[in-house]
């Protein structure tokens, strides 16, 4: 912390003044195990004088005890906080680290490279503006390098630092460096990053981290710290149309009714027109209230309280926006899902969807495709497992205001929560609103059996095993019997679920009979769509979930 120590000593007030205008940059580091991520961050903290004497003493002692550098200082130990990790010698979760220079305060998300912990990387990347991707100079690009790059692009990071580490072990070879850089640029081209900056570094020796290294005279670019201090991360949120999810309605007495929230985009002034997403009603901002006095203007990122001129009904879950650029207001968002949990996605099952405007029950009706994170190829799937990414369609119990994620991370994101375990099971990024395609299963009339002319037999035609699985009976009238083809049963046998939409309760016996005949469990639900029945094979459920699937309804 010795930056500007002279000014601190001589004129602390001037120093404090100079620090008030500092900006904030959040970045993420990612790489494979042993790429030296923790060492790199440890080095940044170390060289920017953020390590105190007592921490240094502890670090020296720990380096001798559990260090991997033969008793020399092991910078990684500054970061590997949890005891279990120290013993394993790897980072197992996201750690947040802080350091600052005279220009910026930095928040670093240190994330693991282990395949099974991809969820942690997505977590760390969700708030980051820059990604530092580490590559071992000896190994070049690995599968995980590609995976991490894809993930950070998916999560909306636009600036990449390709930190080619362990340059000391390839004798600071400029050609090898260039080859890795070229490989990377070629691979990353379709990901559409705004900038890619390749740096030859050695985290262990400190080459090109803070100081320019004498070992790489051929390298003329910035050091890592210099780059991080000066990179312009476009925060164009202030230029976008105004959006504020209403987080809390503040009503201490009859005379005050304030709408609290964090501005997700744009600017707001007293007198501006705002539109309520749920009702479409428009009012005018009266005051922008804060404890430090009313504001003439508030911008994206600020947490404020607005009062409006007219009395209109607004509650948590609403979004206030400019009238001429309303958000999507939909029950059927299409979104990229990153599955974060051991237990795979169950299409058709009800989850809780938490977005910027609160919690709404909803289900995934369809997985369009999954993306192979190594090749970026799309593949047909019926569900998503841990660390899998796919494009999915959702159906929410009520309409929710969203923006496309590429336009706004705050109003375009959501998480899925398991209703029974309360685990956070997926991260979602909205791409657009789509009309629900519910006629995936075609019904075919069969000849009525002799003697029962009043009954129609409806055969569920071939279901594509890779699509979902909504059978819409809402247009069917009269009594009928359902017949399921073998492909459908095989589909259910694999753990898939089929959602039946019914026009009325009179159709229930036919679905119940199907379940009865084939030993299927079902969940009954009544939603805005009408009556829904979810059929599934009980035996495929993990033990701990059996209690929740008693067929008694939601």
């Amino acid at each position, binding site marked *: 912390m010795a930056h500007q120590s002279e000014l601190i000593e001589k004129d602390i007030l001037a120093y*404090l003044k100079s620090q008030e205008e500092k900006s904030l940059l959040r970045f993420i580091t990612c790489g494979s195990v042993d790429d030296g991520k923790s060492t790199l961050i440890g080095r940044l903290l170390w060289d920017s004088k953020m390590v105190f004497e007592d921490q240094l003493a502890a670090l020296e002692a720990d380096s001798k005890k559990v260090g991997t550098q033969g008793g020399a200082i092991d910078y990684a130990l500054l970061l590997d906080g949890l005891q279990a990790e120290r013993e394993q010698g790897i980072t197992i979760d996201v750690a947040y680290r802080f350091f600052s220079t005279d220009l910026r305060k930095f*928040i670093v998300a240190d994330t693991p490279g282990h395949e099974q912990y991809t969820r*942690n990387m997505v977590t760390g990347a969700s708030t980051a503006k820059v990604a530092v991707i580490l590559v071992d100079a000896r190994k070049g690009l690995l599968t995980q390098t590609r995976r991490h790059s894809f993930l950070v692009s998916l999560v909306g990071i636009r600036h990449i630092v390709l930190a080619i580490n362990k340059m000391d072990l390839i004798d600071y070879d400029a050609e090898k460096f260039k080859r890795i850089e070229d490989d990377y640029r070629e691979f990353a081209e379709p990901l559409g990053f705004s900038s890619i900056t390749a740096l030859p570094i050695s985290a262990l020796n400190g080459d090109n981290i803070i100081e320019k290294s004498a070992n790489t005279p051929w390298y003329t670019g910035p050091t890592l710290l210099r780059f991080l201090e000066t990179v312009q991360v476009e925060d164009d949120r202030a230029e976008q149309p105004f959006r504020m999810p209403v987080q809390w309605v503040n009503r201490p007495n009859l005379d005050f009714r304030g709408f609290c929230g964090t501005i997700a985009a744009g600017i707001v002034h007293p007198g501006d027109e705002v539109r309520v997403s749920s009702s479409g009603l428009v009012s005018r901002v009266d005051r922008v209230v804060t404890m430090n006095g009313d504001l003439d203007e508030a911008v994206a990122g600020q947490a404020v309280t607005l009062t409006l001129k007219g009395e209109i009904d607004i509650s948590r879950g609403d979004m206030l926006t400019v009238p001429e650029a309303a958000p999507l207001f939909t029950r059927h968002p299409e979104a990229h899902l990153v599955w974060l949990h051991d237990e795979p996605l169950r299409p058709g099952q009800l989850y809780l969807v938490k977005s910027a405007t609160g919690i709404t029950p909803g289900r995934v009706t369809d997985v369009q495709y999954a993306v192979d994170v190594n090749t970026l190829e799309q593949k047909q799937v019926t569900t998503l497992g841990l660390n899998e990414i796919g494009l999915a369609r959702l159906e929410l119990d009520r309409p929710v205001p969203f923006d496309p994620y590429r336009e706004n991370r705050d109003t375009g994101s959501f998480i899925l929560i398991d209703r029974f375990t309360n685990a956070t099971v997926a991260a979602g990024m909205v791409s657009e609103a789509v009309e629900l395609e519910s006629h995936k299963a075609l019904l075919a009339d069969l000849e009525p059996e002799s003697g029962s002319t009043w009954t129609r037999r409806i055969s569920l035609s071939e279901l594509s095993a890779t699509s979902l699985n909504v059978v819409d009976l809402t247009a069917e009238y009269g009594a009928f019997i359902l017949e399921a083809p073998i492909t459908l049963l095989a589909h259910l046998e694999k753990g898939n679920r089929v959602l039946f939409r019914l026009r009325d309760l009179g159709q229930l016996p036919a679905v119940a009979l199907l379940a009865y005949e084939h030993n299927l469990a079902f969940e009954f639900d009544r939603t805005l769509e009408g009556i829904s029945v979810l059929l599934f094979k009980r035996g495929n459920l993990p033990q701990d979930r059996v209690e929740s699937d008693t067929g008694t309804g939601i």
Partner: protein
Amino acid sequence: MTSNLTHLQQLEAESIHIIREVVAEFDNPVMLYSIGKDSAVMLHLARKAFYPAPAPFPLLHVDTTWKFREMIQFRDRMVQESGFKLIVHVNEEGVARGVSPFTHGSALYTDVMKTEGLKQALDRYKFDAAFGGARRDEEKSRAKERIFSFRSANHRWDPKNQRPELWSLYNTRIKPGESIRVFPLSNWTELDIWQYIHLENIPIVPLYYAAVRPVVERDGMLIMVDDDRLELKPGEVIQHKSVRFRTLGCYPLTGAVESEADTLPQIIQEMLLTRTSERQGRLIDHDQAGSMEKKKQEGYF
């Protein structure tokens, strides 16, 4: 773009968002108030979040009965000025057993009077969310803790099974008996806290400012003789030194630093020029390696 928010403005907004989210989604939240500088900032942010209304939750102070007297005076003054409801909880069982930092050692004492006391209070009032003023830069195991940190019905933290936390979307769902500890200051550093106190003129306990105080030297630390319960050991002499505290807790466990800094800018100046991190003034971390992580798993804040 009209203006870029500064780092302090961004931190403030993030904290206010977190505090409001808790009030919107929990039935019975409480704010742990430890009287220190971080608590002072947290309380200030809570007032800002709900202005002009008072914050819709009480403060809870788990009193070990060994706090500095000036802390208690300050606490009562702040409660009066801010209009918060204050709940003071003392582990009476621990008091009845005569548990003190002198007779039982800092580890057992902290466990009984702080951790147990806290759990008792959370159970008694059935709080489903509790704000704490911990920061991620304080200690290594804190660096990995979520802002909304799940606790089992036994108040335990499972560091290997934390909920992923993305964007500013916090999973607030719990079952009856479970709770969430919420850390609105997670992303603040010690320097941020001091700068913000300076910028916003937030009152802090006078013990942070240097003054001549009676101290004894014990185990390499300067311990203030705050009342007559501190028994002098052989060879110990009460000295009067100009000292201040970088962190506040129970007086027998909190080391003073010699200092002349009696204004806020001087404190910040001293902090910037110093080379010793702030938790070193506390005995609690030194008991065993990874001690904070162990305590946290058991329910300590």
